[in-house]
């Protein structure tokens, strides 16, 4: 008999915790989208992925540990869904040649820059479209890390946890991903120059 009011209280507490969880998760949605947009290959994919992620998060809210990084938790769901959706069929990244050094893009842009020497102006020779297109051309394994660290501001350790890979792998994929991005950007800069 005594159990009933206790049950009621427990349910009320649970409902309150759940509503709070949902509000916190929704408050992070802009930040999650910033990353999701480029983990996915298109706006439409990002849209679907966000909805699947939030639907799953709302269903499994109990598995979130309060006080831990909710943005990382949401992105872990999102990256797992992205993998499940079989979006990883791209050209094999190992087959792509990379330029010998990290300065390739700078050299190419500066070369075509009509004497422009200010680094920020050199960068601005690239358009927003160039960047979005180049990002989407980076193969998934590398892009996941690149987007989490460079756009999502996650640490190497957080990215490793989200993707369930060792920190060393995060570092090597990040390094390679940035190079691939620069090569893609250099290609579009060269196309525009000709």
């Amino acid at each position, binding site marked *: 008999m005594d159990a009933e009011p206790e049950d009621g209280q427990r349910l009320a507490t649970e409902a309150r915790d759940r509503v709070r969880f949902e509000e916190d998760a929704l408050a992070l949605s802009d930040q999650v989208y910033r990353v999701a947009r480029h983990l996915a290959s298109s706006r439409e994919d990002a849209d679907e992925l966000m*909805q699947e992620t939030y639907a799953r998060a709302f269903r499994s809210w109990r598995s979130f540990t309060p006080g831990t990084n909710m943005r990382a938790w949401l992105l872990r769901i999102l990256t797992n869904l992205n993998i499940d959706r079989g979006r990883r069929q791209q050209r094999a990244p190992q087959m792509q040649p990379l330029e010998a050094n990290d300065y390739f893009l700078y050299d190419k842009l500066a070369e075509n820059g009509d004497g422009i020497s200010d680094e920020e102006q050199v960068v601005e020779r690239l358009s927003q479209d160039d*960047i979005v297109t180049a990002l989407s051309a980076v193969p998934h394994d590398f892009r996941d890390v690149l987007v989490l660290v*460079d756009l999502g501001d996650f640490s190497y350790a957080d990215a490793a946890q989200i993707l369930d890979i060792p920190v060393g792998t995060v570092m090597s994929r990040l390094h390679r991903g940035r190079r691939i991005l620069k090569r893609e950007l250099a290609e579009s800069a060269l196309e525009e120059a000709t």
Partner: protein
Amino acid sequence: MKDPCAHCEEMMQPYLDHVLTDEEMAEAEAHLAECVDCRRRYRFEESLRIYVRKAANEPMPVELKQKLAALRIPLE
């Protein structure tokens, strides 16, 4: 002896990610202080990261935000 500019290049990504040791950081900065080319390239890399981040920042569509809010589980 290794080419100092090649060594500086190897340190560029970890330098900008703030993961170099104090000793490595001092080494990179000593070279950057005296090498205009490397300094320029570091600055370019830094500007590129900022620019990519700005260019890639697409705001979430309002409709999507509404769809996400509608996914909340109603209270019984």
